[in-house]
């Protein structure tokens, strides 16, 4: 796909948001029909209750849904979608409500379909290395159900204790270990999907023809609603070794990352936190990272015993060479959990050191890590906005946390500007505006910075193939609402970058 990867116009000035459409009350008739389908206690229409669903994990976009429904079965979801289609009412699917891009932001003029009651693990097939789960099943519960047989579900977003598998499919969630094990897309074998016309279909990875499952996973709920997911189970590694290395500076930590990857080691995870995020994690979960560290690196190796042992020694040496002043090696699962606890709670923990913050998600080539971090530092110093950095260092996925005080007038706007400027940096260095949190409603405005009109039109044509009426999670991913009937790509003259770059 073509890209505008070179010399983009800065995003930083742009802070306008996609406002929800004006609140047109939904026809009472729809509420009545949904109550007939599901029973009155599965349909929420009380305004006070509805408002508790106004946002997901990202709270700076809010919109109270017109109706919330809590179905128990795929058939019910299909029936709800058919009702919505017949009434021309948009609908949005929501799992546990932990998304960080507003992908499940409700529509005031629509129905929010919440899958949190669909949480049965339907089948565990150990010889076949797969499990079949409903969309509301919590990510970690899959692992809990199969760990006794020596297996686990590999995608491990930091919110794995509560995020749903359905949400993981929609967002193609990653996690600390996706460097070695890949994203959700690599662990989903098939999905039962309710299509926007209310049919229940099966999309499978091994079917002939186009890889529709590949299109569906990560489409952020814009192509249909998954109602049953067959996931791949991964064998628990024979051994796991985890170390925590403390460095004086983030640059030294970055050099260690480059040295490790450069040496051909593929760690299961390689994570970095800076001083500010260490301070937050310490305040929240007392993870007791080495005091005075400017950065800590968590490196986890897993696999066959001899291979891990050899590589672990190498990693330790490379960390010391890069200037690690303290290295801790987890002796058992309890110590490993403590090392990870600090990292996994880092986002929410920042709430301890700042009244409010923005979790940013961007990608850069790993090799430019030191330059980009220095630029982020400079941005922070210029603007006086504090930025804590947490990242999946192995694949260059940054999670800067932009701190502000929401009680201070203008602070949120300044934070938004810094947050946007960080994405500018990512694009400028040949990266991407999101690594794993998705575009949702939050980043749709940045899409034109990364993609040309032709790119976006092409994506829109795919979407129209699934959802010609544009009722399935509309207003997400794409910067401006378009209708499927519109002629794509009306513009004057050829695009300046057309055919020049194929970076993505």
């Amino acid at each position, binding site marked *: 796909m073509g890209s505008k990867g070179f010399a983009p116009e800065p995003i930083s000035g742009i802070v306008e948001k996609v406002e929800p459409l004006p609140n047109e009350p939904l026809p009472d008739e729809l509420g009545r029909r949904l109550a007939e389908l599901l029973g009155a206690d599965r349909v*929420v229409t*009380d305004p*006070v*209750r509805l*408002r*508790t*669903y*106004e*946002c*997901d*994990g990202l*709270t700076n976009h809010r919109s109270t849904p017109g109706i919330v429904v*809590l179905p128990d079965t795929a058939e019910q979801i299909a029936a709800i979608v058919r009702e919505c289609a017949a009434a021309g009412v948009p609908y949005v699917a929501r799992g*546990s*409500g*932990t998304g960080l891009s507003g992908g499940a932001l409700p529509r005031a003029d629509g129905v929010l379909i*919440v899958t*949190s*009651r669909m*949480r049965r693990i339907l089948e565990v097939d150990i010889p076949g290395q797969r499990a079949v789960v409903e969309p*509301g099943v*919590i990510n970690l519960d899959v692992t809990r159900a199969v760990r006794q047989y020596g297996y686990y579900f590999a995608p491990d977003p930091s*919110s794995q*204790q*509560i*995020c749903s598998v359905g949400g993981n499919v929609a967002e193609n969630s990653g996690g600390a270990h996706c460097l070695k094990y890949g994203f959700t897309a690599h662990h989903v074998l098939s999905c039962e999907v309710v299509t926007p016309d209310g049919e229940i279909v099966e999309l499978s990875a091994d079917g002939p023809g186009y890889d529709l499952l590949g299109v569906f996973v990560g489409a952020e709920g814009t192509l249909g609603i998954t109602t049953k997911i067959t996931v791949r189970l991964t064998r628990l590694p024979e051994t796991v070794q985890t170390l925590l290395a403390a460095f004086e500076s983030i640059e030294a930590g970055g050099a260690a990352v480059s040295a490790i990857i450069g040496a051909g080691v593929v760690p299961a995870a390689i994570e970095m936190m800076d001083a500010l995020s260490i301070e937050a994690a310490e*305040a*929240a*979960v007392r993870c007791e990272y080495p005091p005075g560290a400017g950065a800590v690196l968590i490196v986890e190796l897993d696999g066959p015993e001899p291979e891990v042992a050899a590589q672990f020694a190498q990693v330790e040496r490379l960390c010391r060479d890069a200037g690690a002043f303290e290295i801790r090696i987890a002796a058992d699962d309890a110590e490993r959990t403590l090392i990870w606890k600090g990292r996994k*709670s880092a*986002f*929410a*923990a*920042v*709430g*301890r050191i700042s*009244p409010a*913050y923005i979790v940013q998600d961007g990608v850069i080539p790993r090799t430019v890590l030191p330059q980009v971090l220095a630029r982020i530092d400079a941005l922070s110093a210029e603007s006086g906005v504090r930025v804590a950095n947490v990242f999946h260092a192995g694949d260059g996925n940054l999670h800067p946390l932009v701190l502000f005080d*929401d009680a201070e007038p203008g602070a949120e706007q300044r934070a938004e500007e810094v947050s946007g400027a960080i994405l500018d940096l990512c694009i400028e260095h040949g990266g991407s505006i999101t690594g794993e949190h998705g575009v949702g409603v939050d980043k749709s405005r940045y899409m034109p910075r990364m993609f040309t009109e032709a790119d976006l039109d092409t994506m829109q044509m795919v979407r129209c193939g699934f959802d010609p009426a544009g009722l399935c999670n509309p207003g997400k991913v794409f910067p401006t609402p378009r209708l499927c009937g519109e002629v794509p790509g009306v513009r004057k003259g050829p695009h300046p970058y057309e055919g020049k770059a194929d970076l993505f």
Partner: protein
Amino acid sequence: MSAQDDLPKLLGDCVHCGFCLPTCPTYTLWGEEMDSPRGRIHLMQQHVDGEPFSDAMVQHFDACLGCMACVTSCPSGVQYDRLIEMTRADVEREHPRSLKERAIREMVFQLFPYKRRLRALRGPLRAYQKSGLERLVRRSGVLERISPSIAAMERLAPPLGRTPRLPERVAARGERRATVGMLSGCVQGEFFPGVNAATARVLALEGCDVVIPKGQGCCGALSLHSGREDEARDFARRTIETFESVDVVVVNSAGCGSAMKDYRALLADDPAWSRRADALTAKTRDFAEFLAELGPRAERAPLPVTVAYHDACHLAHAQGVRSQPRALLAAIPELDVREIADPEICCGSAGTYNLFQPEAAAELGDRKAVNVDATGAELLVAANPGCSMQIATALRRRGAPIAVAHTAEILDASLRGLSPDTLLTRVA
């Protein structure tokens, strides 16, 4: 509790991450946002922003068990315990309840915090249990029709035996290591008198002079956890006075200990009492917590029995006491401690919850019973009378009755070299 303008500030700590959801008992039951801590905090915010308490809103606050599992799981340090207590007090002040609700609540709050009234009930209750009327009433379902809350009360009452009366002072065995006050509690004292006797004996055997003031009343836990703040403050003041002369107050009931550790906040705005409340809070210790600090001296005799240890929410989540009781049990020779799956999820007892929300409480009790049953243990150990009654009832309903004991009773049996049978024959 103290300054009301704290509420908006405390609400601001929530970042809406959702990490609390999987440990919330009502979220695990119903999967609905408004019955999760995150959703309830959102409702509190709506109220602060001017939305009046509607029946719908209050229903979700009432459905909260106050188990504080969310406080444990929150990475942002949200003080949900304070939030729900303040909100409950606001609800009691601002929201009119139905006549039936008021009647049931009055009955509970006029009965349970008062030892004499509970004692007066013991005779008729024993007669009722022995006469066969109990079986008849349960079969007929008549109480369910009158009021599910009264039916729950009836089901939960433990089989009653004789009550040994405790002396005001129990002398230390051997050289004295400490002088401690002991809270005898209301429900603990009247329905589980053996627990208090065991607590006093263990403390004495470990070298403590135990002071059990006669005049002591209710600590106010039930009132405090139900939003009846003024009533709770009265109980708190009386308890503070009662124990002012001792250095440590040992509490064997998790709910009471947690309330007494909250006196500091409860009376913070009362200049005449804030300092005294502070002192009481500082010297309150859970039974297991105190023994862990004191260190073992008395010899433990073997007690060959398999026990399942249940974390009472007001011990584990509210007081952070998890490792101490386990360590005490594990130090007894030949005693096998089993862990119960999903230990962080409440059993549904939660103070008065099983009386006011009997359906949800029974469902949570059933879930807990399945997990307790799966341990294969012979004996259930819990440090709160409500939990013991709740889980024993649920296991009986499941057809898998189990003996229950307090941590103090287990230690007592070991220190006195009793056979496990003394504990096992008391199937609830």
